[in-house]
């Protein structure tokens, strides 16, 4: 091989490598810029309008004025509570079903599961959230109104159900992957000891797949937390702390979606909304950290914790 082509070869090697590194750097830069953008926008509430972090997180008084003068109250507790309660409810509803489905498609009927059930579940994930919201408003809300004999069908319950349907595919497919990753040898050993299928699933498969399942649940939670349009249509936005699952309330995202467009640029209200967007960003970071924690735990388990 002569030297010029060799040079060309290695030159290319470095060039391509450089491009790959650049793309990696680009992703980092993009994330940092988005983060910086949110911090820049969201810090005004505290720096320019002088609200304390404690007020923002712990107070339910929400009267930011829609002008640059400030002087209102910017307590986001109602929205934080609303987000937590609806997402919690969604998880409570979705997790058993999702886990059941994941087990069905891996342990009970693997052939049907892989061929039909998984694709169907993934289609659930691809349905645009606007469509979910509209079906929720026109089908679910009247249903709740009639079944529970309430005057208003909009409620945390409705939002929780809509979100549950939305996050169901995420939890199901991540859990199914985790269950599939449990070595078959474990199942054989359990059957060999005379376990029934349910005993095998309950005592061996689920504990072994637990870190992956928890990651799936957190991933679902993150999706629920960030959802705006579908929730805003069915939660019956009321600026008040919820009293029961039939209460109407607001979440972080619904308030951002409904006020951001109208709020005055540079005003107190808009800054407070940006602070809420920043909070969402930080919460998603928290979720990611948790997922990492659990996947590492899963890895440690699989490697036997020799260390």
């Amino acid at each position, binding site marked *: 091989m002569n030297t010029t082509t060799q040079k060309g070869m290695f030159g290319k090697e470095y060039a391509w490598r450089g491009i790959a590194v650049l793309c990696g750097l680009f992703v980092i830069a993009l994330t940092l810029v988005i983060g910086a953008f949110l911090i820049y926008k969201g810090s005004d509430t505290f720096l320019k309008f002088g609200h304390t972090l404690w007020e923002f997180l712990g107070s339910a008084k929400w009267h930011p004025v829609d002008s640059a003068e400030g002087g209102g109250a910017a307590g986001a507790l109602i929205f934080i509570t609303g987000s937590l309660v609806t997402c919690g409810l969604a998880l409570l509803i979705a997790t058993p079903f999702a886990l059941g489905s994941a087990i069905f498609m891996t342990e009970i009927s693997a052939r049907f599961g892989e061929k039909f059930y998984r694709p169907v579940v993934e289609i659930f994930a691809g349905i645009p959230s606007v469509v979910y919201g509209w079906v929720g408003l026109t089908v679910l809300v009247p249903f709740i109104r009639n079944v529970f004999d309430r*005057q208003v069908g909009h409620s945390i319950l409705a939002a929780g159900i809509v979100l549950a349907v939305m996050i169901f595919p995420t939890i199901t497919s991540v859990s199914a992957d985790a269950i599939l990753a449990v070595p078959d040898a474990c199942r054989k050993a359990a059957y060999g000891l005379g376990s029934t299928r349910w005993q095998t699933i309950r005592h061996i498969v689920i504990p072994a797949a637990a870190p992956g399942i928890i990651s799936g649940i957190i991933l679902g939670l993150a999706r629920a937390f960030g959802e705006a349009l579908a929730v805003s249509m069915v939660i*019956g936005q*009321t600026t008040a702390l919820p009293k029961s699952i039939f209460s109407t309330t607001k979440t972080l995202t619904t308030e951002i979606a*409904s006020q951001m467009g*109208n709020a005055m640029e540079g005003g107190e209200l808009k800054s407070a909304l940006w602070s809420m967007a920043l909070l969402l960003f930080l919460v998603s970071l928290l979720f990611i950290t948790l997922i990492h924690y659990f996947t590492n735990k899963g890895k440690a388990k699989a490697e036997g914790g020799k260390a």
Partner: protein
Amino acid sequence: MKKKIIAMTLSAVMAIGLFTGCGQTGESEAPAETQAAESGAQNETQAAQDEKELSGTITAAGSSALKPLADDAANAFAELYPDVAITIDAGGSGEGLKQVADGTVDIGNSDVEAAEKLDEAQAAELVDHQVCVITMAPIVNPDVAEAGVTDLSKEELIGIFTGEITNWSEVGGPDESIVLITRPTSSGTRATFQKYALDGNEEASNASMETDDSGVLLQNVRDTKGAIGYVALSYLVDDPGVATVAIDGVEPTLENTYNGTYPVWTFEHMYTKGEPNEVVGAFLEYIMSDEYGAQMETLGYGVSSKMTTTEH
């Protein structure tokens, strides 16, 4: 045939005037015209072209209350000038004003004056075009109206929206809880309603359901027994399945708005940054023309020039 020739001529024009189409409309006019003249089109097409030479884009964003009108006007305008691409976005009055001030859209639609949402320097750059009058009506679920609540005094209305009156029986209706359905605090519709129907009294946020837009509000009032809310008349022209309520005996109609007896109305504004360019100017002129005025009324908007009073 004729159309085809025009289309071909214009395509040629556009091809030569590179970059003109994709930029803002401002630059696209002059070259298009000169090119058209130079292209030496035949006389008959030239004549047609006088009428249809406008070309460019118009982008507008803002008030959702104004959007149906703007859409309709845009369609009619586009029939006349097929080379003008018009985009109307909702997003809210604040967003419309911000975007027009940023220069990202040509027209900012707003329910409120620019000064309320922008700082002084920005607001001063904008030129106001009061394209129409919009009238807000209180609406209730049909069950409330059927039970006899068709007229509320201002005091009753204030009592209801501030959360002091919580049962319809207190205002002569059925024994049923009142469900308040309103708009977010930053909404222009809400600001107008609050200012002129509630005399500035703050709505009870903690007892009402807010909806992001008038369409969903309407749906909610229609579906919820004992519900009361408010929308612009434009949402009520096709049978909406809700009942309007008179205030102090005055029905919310365009006539009553024109003659000054019904108080809950406001001018709708289309702001431009500086004076509008030719295409945008033509569009604004078209909306405010008499020939479009008739169409405007069938959509439920009031014609600005018919107002006998401009003050509340």
